[in-house]
């Protein structure tokens, strides 16, 4: 296998493969993606995969997510059907007292171009007839949707490979050296050399950073999901908490726990998830659960993406974030711009690693 590349990406999840694909659109130099297992074995294979914008905070972060969501229709034209659906997103609330907060959110986001409606109980039930009639209201935005994460990564990989990107899977990076202005990336299957190195190791970013003496403050945050048997299509929207996939399965869950790299599913969180699901959509009571899974989010210490050049290290880039499914088209676009043009079309200074000092 060729050992010299212009650019190497460590990590082939949705973030790394998204970058590799976007690079390959404009870039004719050699690109190699290294993954210690097969892409999707990390967080990208155990996710809800909402393309979610409307109630992320603060507003500049919601805006960043919006730009990425807007790239999705075009992306699916380019790489093929990734089952992206702009369903619209619904966040229900069960206490009337939440309405004021919801209205404040709608007011301030109107200014940045994210249209949010605050729905009455009747309006919620009209949109989503199976929602619990005890709902007080919901925030709604048409910008939100969801995607099939497996198809997304598979399509990114296929398109990238068609454009000449090489993948080396089941190949763990164990050491990184800087020699004569180049990076030497030592892996289970030998050493590779490159000019540009992109770290997209997701929840393993900290240990990859350590190989270069760079601190990438990313922690682990577990989430657990329940999956139902395929049901006839009955949910119209991506609800913040559950969604119905194309094949009829309902994916339920929105949980956060610190459990390191332990990908177990636990009864307490499964029960809480079941409670949430029946509170939102009581009709799910009789639905059969066929599977539970958990995934480990990469959570930067301050909760926001870490993107761009690594300060003090020439030609070294990092992309580590949660919400990587939503953000992958934008991250891929921006990192490509950074490498090819030296600057980005949207400022990303506030996402620099330098903020951690």
């Amino acid at each position, binding site marked *: 296998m060729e050992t010299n590349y212009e650019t190497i990406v460590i990590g082939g999840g949705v973030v790394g493969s998204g970058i590799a694909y976007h690079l390959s659109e404009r870039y004719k130099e050699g690109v190699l993606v290294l993954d210690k297992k097969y892409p999707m074995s990390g967080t990208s294979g155990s996710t809800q995969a909402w393309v979610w914008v409307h109630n992320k*905070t603060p507003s500049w972060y919601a805006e960043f997510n919006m730009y990425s969501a807007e790239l999705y229709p075009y992306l699916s034209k380019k790489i093929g059907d990734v089952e992206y659906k702009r369903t619209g997103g619904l966040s229900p609330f069960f206490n009337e007292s939440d309405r004021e907060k919801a209205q404040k959110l709608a007011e301030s*986001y109107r200014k940045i171009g994210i249209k949010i409606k605050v729905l009455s109980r009747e309006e919620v039930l009209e949109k989503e007839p199976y929602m619990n009639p005890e709902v007080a209201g919901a925030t709604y935005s048409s910008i939100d949707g969801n995607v099939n994460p497996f198809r997304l990564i598979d399509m990114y990989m296929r398109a990238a490979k068609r454009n000449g990107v090489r993948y080396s899977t089941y190949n763990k990076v164990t050491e990184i050296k800087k020699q004569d202005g180049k990076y030497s990336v030592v892996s289970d299957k030998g050493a590779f050399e490159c000019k540009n190195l992109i770290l997209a190791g997701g929840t393993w970013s900290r240990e990859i950073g350590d190989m270069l003496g760079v601190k990438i403050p990313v922690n682990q945050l577990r989430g657990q999901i329940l999956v139902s048997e395929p049901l006839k299509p009955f949910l119209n929207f991506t609800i913040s908490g559950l969604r119905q996939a194309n094949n009829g399965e309902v994916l339920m869950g929105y949980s956060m726990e610190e459990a390191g790299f332990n990908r177990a599913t636990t009864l307490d969180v499964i029960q809480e998830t*079941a409670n949430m699901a029946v509170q939102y959509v009581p009709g799910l009571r009789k639905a059969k659960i066929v599977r539970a899974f958990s995934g480990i989010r990469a959570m930067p210490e301050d909760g926001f993406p870490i993107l761009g050049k690594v300060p003090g290290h020439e030609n070294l880039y990092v992309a580590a974030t949660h919400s990587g499914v939503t953000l992958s088209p934008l991250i891929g676009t921006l990192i490509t711009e950074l490498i090819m043009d030296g600057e980005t079309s949207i400022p990303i200074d506030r996402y620099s690693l330098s903020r951690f000092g």
Partner: protein
Amino acid sequence: MDKTTIICRCEEISCEEVEEVISNGGRTFDDVKRITRCGMGPCQAKICTSMVAEIIHQQTGLSPSEIPLPRMRMPLSPIKLETLATNSTSFSTVKSVLDEVELEEGKVR
């Protein structure tokens, strides 16, 4: 096995589709599952596991003991959601997206 032999009856996945994943670098049942949905059907891989392992063995030369079994997850057989629910409406690990929206001096940050 013929290319068109159905390996996963629940999801109707053929031998050819499984082989493609392996030739693209996949090595485990879970790699095959994530890309093709083989094993995600109602029987949750009870029927197709061994045939997929056989294909992986044939294509990669890995011995059966080197091919990890699919991760078994709760519930081992389908169970009604109401059996799992405890009817509590207080949540700790499960979050509501709106609760995460914080107001600062009456304004969204």
